[in-house]
């Protein structure tokens, strides 16, 4: 009996939930930290550094770049092509993400809610297909669709000879990206709509609320958080999307040159790596500001 009450020898147990202790816990997360450091943090810092140099792809500055301070940034603020790229990115985000993917995704989710499971699964499979195909494959499909000679769209409309990607490049990109990204919004809204209690929808129906009144008074208040989160994600993805380059290369005459495409063109066509890094950093700042606005809106809800 006396031995049972003697203290058990050994290390004092760790006080965290998993019982690992700080040392071993750090061991577990170290590989992840290494990867994040090597592929995310280091390149980001490197981009910021290059952004204040006159580093170029070729020539003297490629070998020995010199620090130029903020002159890349002042150049960007006065660069008409950069202004153009910013404007086109806003049009692209507003048209294809905030309006296109959001509205189409929600509409599909709302309609699919009441359809038979077989129909729903088929539609979901097709929409998801657009989402999971590699960008290069999808871009090739859409180039074929919009093609001037023998393109599918011209074949459907009987407008042979219309060069859609040259005559209406931004409209084509908006349609393309809406098609490409709607799956995410549809899936997210499908699950969000399941969180709306059926009895609340039926209550609205019992008092004779119209479809729009039901959406406004019952559905949207329930999924407001989902709408904000979804809009944030698809806005950022669309703003940073590079696949427009695969369709139009930014042309004709910079008419579809969104910021990521402009960065690529400045860096690899123009060879101005320092300047393109500065613009990249500006894009990062813009993304950060948009995120902060969304987060503030989200917090106001609770």
């Amino acid at each position: 009996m006396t031995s049972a009450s003697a203290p058990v020898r050994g290390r004092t147990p760790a006080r965290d939930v998993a019982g690992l202790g700080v040392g071993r816990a750090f061991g577990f997360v170290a590989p992840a930290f290494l990867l994040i450091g090597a592929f995310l943090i280091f390149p980001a810092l490197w981009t910021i550094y290059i952004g204040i140099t006159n580093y170029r792809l070729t020539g003297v500055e490629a070998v020995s770049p010199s620090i130029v301070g903020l002159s890349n940034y002042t150049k960007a603020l006065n660069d008409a092509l950069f202004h153009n790229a910013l404007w086109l990115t806003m049009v692209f985000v507003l048209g294809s993400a905030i309006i296109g993917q959001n509205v189409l995704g929600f509409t599909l989710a709302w309609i699919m809610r009441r359809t038979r499971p077989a129909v729903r699964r088929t539609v979901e499979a097709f929409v998801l297909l657009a989402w999971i195909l590699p960008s290069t494959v999808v871009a090739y499909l859409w180039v074929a669709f919009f093609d001037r000679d023998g393109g599918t769209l011209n074949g459907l409309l009987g407008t042979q000879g219309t060069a859609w990607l040259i005559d209406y490049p931004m409209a084509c990109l908006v349609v393309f990206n809406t098609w490409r990204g709607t799956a995410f919004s549809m899936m997210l809204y499908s699950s969000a709509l399941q969180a709306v209690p059926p009895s609340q929808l039926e209550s609205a129906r019992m008092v004779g609320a119209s479809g729009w009144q039901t959406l406004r008074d019952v559905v949207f208040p329930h999924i407001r958080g989902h709408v904000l989160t979804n809009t944030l994600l698809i806005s950022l993805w669309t703003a940073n999307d590079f696949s427009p380059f695969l369709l139009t290369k930014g042309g004709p005459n910079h008419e579809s040159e969104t910021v990521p495409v402009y960065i690529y063109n400045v860096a690899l066509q123009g060879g101005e790596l320092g300047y393109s890094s500065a613009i990249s950093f500006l894009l990062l700042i813009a993304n950060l500001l948009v995120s902060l606005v969304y987060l503030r809106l989200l917090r106001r809800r609770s």
Partner: protein
Amino acid sequence: MAGIDIEGLATVYPNGVRAVDGLDLHVADGEFFALLGPSGCGKTTLLRTIAGLEAATEGTVRIDSADVTRLEPGKRGVAMVFQDYALFPHMNVSENITYPLKVRRVAPATRSGVATRTAGELSLQGLLERKPAQLSGGQQQRVALARAIASEGKVLLLDEPLSNLDARLRLEARTFLKKLQRDLGITTVFVTHDQAEALALADRIAVMDSGKLRQLGSPREVFARPSNTFVANFIGSTPMNLLPGKVTSESDISVVSVPGGSLPAATVSVPADAEVTVGIRPEYLTVASGDISGPALRGGVVVAENLGTQSLVTVDCDGTLVGVTVPEEAEPSPGSAVVLTAPATRVLLYDRESGELLARQPAPVA
């Protein structure tokens, strides 16, 4: 005025289940009407079909003698309170109550007047600015009732109105609900699986099973004279004893032999030697003292369960267990031999095959 007439109503789900199966029912104006049955019996589907949330496959629903079978729920003049109350969490009490008026684009000033008045009727004063999450279960239910009343329907439908409340609150809400219905005089149909709730609240009860009506009557009729063994089994907090029996003598008072002895039965329509099911409620059996000359049951006490003011004693009568309630402090000790008697008017005879009530004399007034 605003009665409900249901004729040959059937609601069939896409998978072929006939949830409501050819039902005829009349609910009178101002009546408090219960749809009672076990889960899956079709009572909720019937309520939802009256509301218009489910489409009737056959038959008609008339409210206030107008055919509403094909009308949208919002056009039927029907208000409904859902089991989970379905309050809108982002609206405060006042907005919830007046939502039916907002849908009809009633002016905000009129709406706030209605909110104040209705909240007064349902003792919700001082809670108008609160959100539903800040209310107790009983208050939430009253807000849901207030919203239904504010919509000024001719008929009020309640889906399991008391099931989301805890036991203590349930009793309070039951009294409140009954008084409210009396005061408003609005035709009310409610669904419940709890027979005690139906007996306590309703003017009339429809007992349902498998989408069909099994009995329709006042709580007293349904309790004292269940018209078949299904209803007999379902109604009553202590289940009715259903014993295999055989009619032995046929006169003004029949005698039926059952395991452990015999019982008298006031019936004239059953021939001697007929095989029947004998139904007798534990409340109507008495533990007799002294010698008994008439028909009686004899057996040994197996177990006694305390129910508060009375005890449920289970007696083994020749291998068949019979329940009998006795007043507190009068319970026989387990193992002792007892004699049980019952008044002839309380003994019910059911057809052994169909389970339908055989005796057809006027219902005794208890």
